[in-house]
């Protein structure tokens, strides 16, 4: 049996005394294509930020690649695209290439110089997401879907083994969404990148995803795929699932 690459155990988290996560646990295995679902405000983004070290839990432990998160240093192995990644300052005068290059940090190190291989890596990931032709364009002058692709490239440039994405398909049209899931499939199957995404998009979930985690009342529950999913699907489609979920 494979051991998990990311393990969050008995996580408790609260905002100003209001409990958000209550004894939530999550194990992510190499190769997983995981969806995290749950109603607005259930703590999906919070859980993701805790797994990536951006927030500290009040209680509980997080282990990344077998190391306690407080001792973990190899941040390049983890990619993260936050919710509303594309709501940055649209007037920021950086090109697509400059944005992607920024995330070479974990390869290059403090005060390190970017070399030819690094630049090739930048080209490679931009090509992978289909944005190479846009590399000299200002990031703020792209559409939301194109910016999304650039952010994926930015995350990929550090050669992560796992990619966390928080509602990556919000505001993307149906066609781009199809392309997006094709890209995710490619990353997962061909590049062997473990993928974890928060989504409300249950329809897409059932097609590509190997594991579904549902957050409710501060806990993380695993759903099987298949029969169980169909029921969940239907319920969620009616927008009532979050409330009457019978965990």
């Amino acid at each position, binding site marked *: 049996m494979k051991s998990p690459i990311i393990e969050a155990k008995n996580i408790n988290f609260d905002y100003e005394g209001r409990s958000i996560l209550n004894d939530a646990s999550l194990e992510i295995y190499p190769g997983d294509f995981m969806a995290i679902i749950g109603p607005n405000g259930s703590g999906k983004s919070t859980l993701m930020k805790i797994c990536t070290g*951006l927030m500290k839990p009040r209680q509980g432990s997080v282990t990344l690649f077998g190391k306690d998160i407080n001792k973990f240093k190899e941040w*390049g192995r983890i990619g993260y695209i*936050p919710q509303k990644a594309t709501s940055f*300052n649209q007037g920021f005068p950086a*090109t697509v290439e400059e944005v992607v290059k*920024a995330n*070479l940090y*974990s390869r290059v190190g403090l005060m390190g110089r970017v070399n030819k291989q690094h630049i090739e890596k930048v080209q490679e990931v931009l090509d992978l997401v289909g944005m190479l032709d846009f590399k000299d364009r200002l990031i703020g002058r792209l559409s939301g879907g194109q910016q999304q692709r650039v952010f994926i490239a930015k995350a990929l440039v550090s050669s992560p083994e796992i990619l966390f994405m928080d509602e990556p398909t919000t505001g993307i049209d149906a066609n781009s969404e199809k392309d997006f899931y094709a890209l995710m499939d490619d990353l997962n199957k061909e590049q062997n990148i473990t993928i974890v995404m928060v989504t409300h998009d249950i329809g897409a979930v059932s097609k590509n995803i190997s594991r579904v985690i549902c957050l409710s009342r501060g806990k993380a529950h695993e759903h099987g795929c298949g029969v169980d999913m169909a029921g969940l699907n239907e319920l969620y489609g009616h927008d009532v699932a979050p409330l009457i979920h019978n965990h």
Partner: protein
Amino acid sequence: MEMLQYDFMQRAFVAGILISIICPIIGTFVVLRRLSMIGDTLSHASLAGIAAGMLGNFYPLWGAMIFSVAAAIGVEKLRKNFSQYAELSISIVLSASIGLAVLMISLADSFNADLMSFLFGSIIAVTGRDIIIMAGTSIFIIVSVLLLYKELLYIAFDEEGAALAGIPTETLNIFFTVLTALTIVAAMRVVGILMISSMLVVPVAASMQISKSFKSTMINSVIFAFLAVVLGLTISYYFNLAPGGAIVVLSVVILLLVIGTKKYILKRIV
């Protein structure tokens, strides 16, 4: 070029050229992080330091350096208490600095020509010692920005992403604010405390109108600042004006010209 026969003009030009490099490169990050007010805050802190120097009878630039660096650290420490309102911590330190400056000036009874030269900038007041300190400080600032260019760019664009990539953002934020404080101390002798903040912001604003990348934003802003400084110093020599005023007015004129030209060209194309 007869003006360059004079030692004081040579010093003013050396100082001016350093200023036209350090102000825009620091200013680019300041503007993009939406911290434009920080220049005013740190320059008023250095005014308090200069008054302290006059009061305690020590070299005023040291006073300016100590006070503005202390204010810079104060801003960063306070920022944590108002995480969504960075500008609030800047305003608080600004108020404290102005109050302190006024107190020190009245205590030292030093509202004199010397102080005026710090407020408005001066060509003739730049001493050899000033130049050495300015040059040392400027080189430190330029080398720091070159070495930390990609880190500072990442933090300015996406602080959370930078932190996740492993960049020590807290330490670098403090370090950057200290660099800003040093920039102000290095530039204030020529440009003047009242106008230094504009030097951080206006050339960058002009550059952002036309630049097509982060790098070109920085390079173009240096070019604009250089033009404003060289022309401004020349004009203030011939017409006996305060150089800070001439330089800043010219920067604004350049900004307006850039905006005007851009509009004109857009109209012709569309």
